[in-house]
């Protein structure tokens, strides 16, 4: 058994960490947060130069042909630095869906631009009033000439503020949920852009007879969505682990330097134990992030889905614990925008409300006999 990173993965991690340590400190990030775009085009091009924006795409489409292991390494670093750029939206979700569902021409048309940092994508699937279902949608796809038109509203679209193209779920006249590509600049597309609660950008997007083309065959869309979501959830797990790791060490450093009652507060055993419990949560989360990564390689799709969701469940619970404690153990300073720790609370809370929340994951993992065998 070998659970270590490969040399290449370690090198990739070091490279990304190096870049972020140099160019993405907390103050730089704070300035980005309040800038008009909310993230950095300059960093985006640097990620492209490092090959991060086409990491998992095939080489013939400008990608690096890497797998979930490498993706997790990168996302864990991004989680540690709380990167604001829309990597999940553009690369993992948008690019992943094009790669999984698109025709050869569509891949050739879109993926090289994504990998080069020229094209931004977003996956529009949630709708107002929806919770965690992927299929409970009412956006309608109607055949029109050689293509389609879409009508309906999508909400909380990650990266929806800046996307050049949207990958949209919509219901065909046959009642199938299909995937469609819509040009962000097309007539009939309107955005209500905003910052999300963690500062990353997003939008509600209104499609009114917006011209669209089907991404691959509508009949195959659900399977593609499920497999891309498994990858995206695994990536989020890695990001959350990076965020938790940073929160733990920020907290530990703070306990060692904050003086009250004449001593660093790390002398209080009650606080030592609280930090120890954060470490326990972090290690359990790290393990499940690895489980998710390994599960992506499994052949049994149902087993894969369940295991990946189990990982997110463990990690969301751990991140909630670690983030609440990190703020608590900092006292008032943890409540401020000026200090980093609260931003990690915000990001991990948003992660816990992305794709499925703790309750929904518990139901999913517990259904059909749970995870482990009976006997």
């Amino acid at each position, binding site marked *: 058994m070998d659970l270590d990173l490969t040399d290449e993965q370690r090198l990739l991690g070091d490279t990304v960490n190096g870049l972020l340590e140099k160019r993405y400190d907390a103050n730089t990030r704070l300035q980005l947060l309040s800038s008009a775009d909310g993230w950095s085009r300059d960093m985006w091009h640097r990620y492209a130069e490092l090959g991060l924006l086409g990491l998992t795409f095939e080489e013939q489409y400008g990608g690096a042909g890497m797998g979930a292991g490498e993706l997790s390494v990168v996302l864990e670093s991004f989680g540690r630095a709380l990167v604001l750029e829309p990597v999940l939206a553009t690369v993992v979700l948008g690019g992943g869906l094009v790669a999984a569902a698109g025709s050869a021409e569509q891949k050739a048309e879109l993926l090289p631009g994504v990998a080069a940092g020229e094209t931004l994508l977003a996956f529009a699937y949630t709708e*107002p009033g929806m919770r965690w279902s992927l299929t409970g949608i009412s956006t309608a796809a109607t055949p029109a000439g050689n293509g389609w038109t879409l009508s309906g509203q999508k909400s909380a679209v990650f990266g929806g503020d800046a996307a050049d193209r949207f990958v949209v779920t919509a219901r065909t006249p046959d009642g199938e949920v299909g995937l469609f590509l819509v040009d962000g600049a097309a007539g009939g597309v*309107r955005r209500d852009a*905003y910052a999300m609660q963690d500062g990353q950008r997003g939008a509600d997007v*209104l499609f009114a007879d917006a011209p669209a083309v089907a991404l691959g065959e509508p009949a195959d869309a659900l399977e593609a969505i499920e497999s891309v979501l498994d990858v995206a959830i695994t990536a989020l797990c890695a990001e959350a682990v990076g965020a938790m790791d940073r929160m733990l060490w920020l907290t530990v450093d703070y306990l060692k330097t904050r003086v009250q009652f004449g001593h660093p507060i790390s002398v*209080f055993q*009650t606080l030592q134990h609280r930090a120890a419990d954060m470490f326990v949560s972090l290690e359990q989360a790290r393990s499940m992030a690895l489980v998710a990564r390994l599960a992506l390689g499994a052949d049994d799709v149902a087993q894969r889905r369940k295991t990946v969701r189990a990982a997110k469940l463990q990690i969301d619970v751990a991140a909630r614990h670690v983030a609440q404690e990190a703020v608590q153990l900092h006292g*008032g300073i943890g*409540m401020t925008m000026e200090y980093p720790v609260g931003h990690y609370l915000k990001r991990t809370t948003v992660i816990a*409300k992305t794709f499925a929340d703790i309750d929904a994951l518990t*139901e999913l993992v517990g259904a059909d006999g749970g995870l482990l065998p009976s006997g």
Partner: protein
Amino acid sequence: MELALSKEDRAFAEEMRAFFTSEIPAEIRDRLARGLHPSKADIVASQRILNEHGMAVPHWPLEWGGREWTPLQRHIWSEEMTLAHVPHPLVFNTAMVGPVIATFGSQELKERFLPKTASAEIWWSQGFSEPNAGSDLASLKTSAVRDGDNYIVNGQKTWTTLAQYGDWIFCLVRTDPTVAQQRGISFVLIDMRSPGVTVRPIHLIDGGYEVNEVFFDNVEVPADQLVGEENKGWTYAKFLLGNERTSNAGIGVIKNRIARAKRLGGEVISAEPLLRARLTRLEVETMALEMTVLRVLARESSMPAGTPDPVSSVLKLRGSELQQDAAELLLDILGPAALPFRKERTVPDGFAALDEGAVDAMPTYFNWRKASIYAGSNEVQRQIIAKAILKF
């Protein structure tokens, strides 16, 4: 908690409810019911009305507008006010500086400040905490040096809630650096418009600006704005902090949050058993805490004021946790609708109207992490309980 109340207590609660719902403008109460923060104008308007009807400072001495209510009646007054979504009279005025001036201040200070404090003509801020004096408040460093008829104040306070509205600030300052920490502290009243006072807002993680840093640079404070005796400030501060043991539980806040979650989440609650289970446990805990509050109140009348009671730490500890849980429940009910950070519920033409709660659910969850930090952190509360039961 109808079960525990006598017929008279219930009638009193009825009377309070009728007053709050008929005298405080509905538009103020509606805003609070929808999860919005009261504006400065809302708070002042509401306190004026309360004060005109003798409802702002019932716990003050009779001659300064108090009522001779029992601790239970005062509790009912406060809870009914919350349940009616009435902004409470400014806690810094009515629960903090007012009682201190009324108990320890000179006649001249009482006359000068108490009426305007009751009516919110003066907006008070609380200047206790400093960057290096949080839980360890007695280590505070802001200094006041006597110079003729004045004190010269230098230093910094922080976490000062709503100081951006403050007219005056009551501060703990160090007047004698040579003695044991607690014995060199005084309680002074400072006009925030004095030269040398600077207020700097602190941006909090919910996106709001409810706290500030307050800097004092050679601020001249007339010596007659000292409350009570020099170097007795710590005693007054302890009196102030121990004043309302039961209000920290925030039963009304918890009940309002649960009620709103049930109103907004009806469908989700019936469809999702895990969420319903959490809601149910939260309701049971709330009922238990309310009974704990009533038990504390029932024995309060038989205990001399200021007697330490570890059960009042239970109220702060569990109360803040339940307030936080109730905020999180609404967040979970909203799900993805809570993700966008929006300042208002208005959306561009053609977009679907936002769910109620979409604007405030996640910011409130973030903001309410404060409840286990301030007013004696929950770690400090556990320490108080441990000390009392382990007797060390």
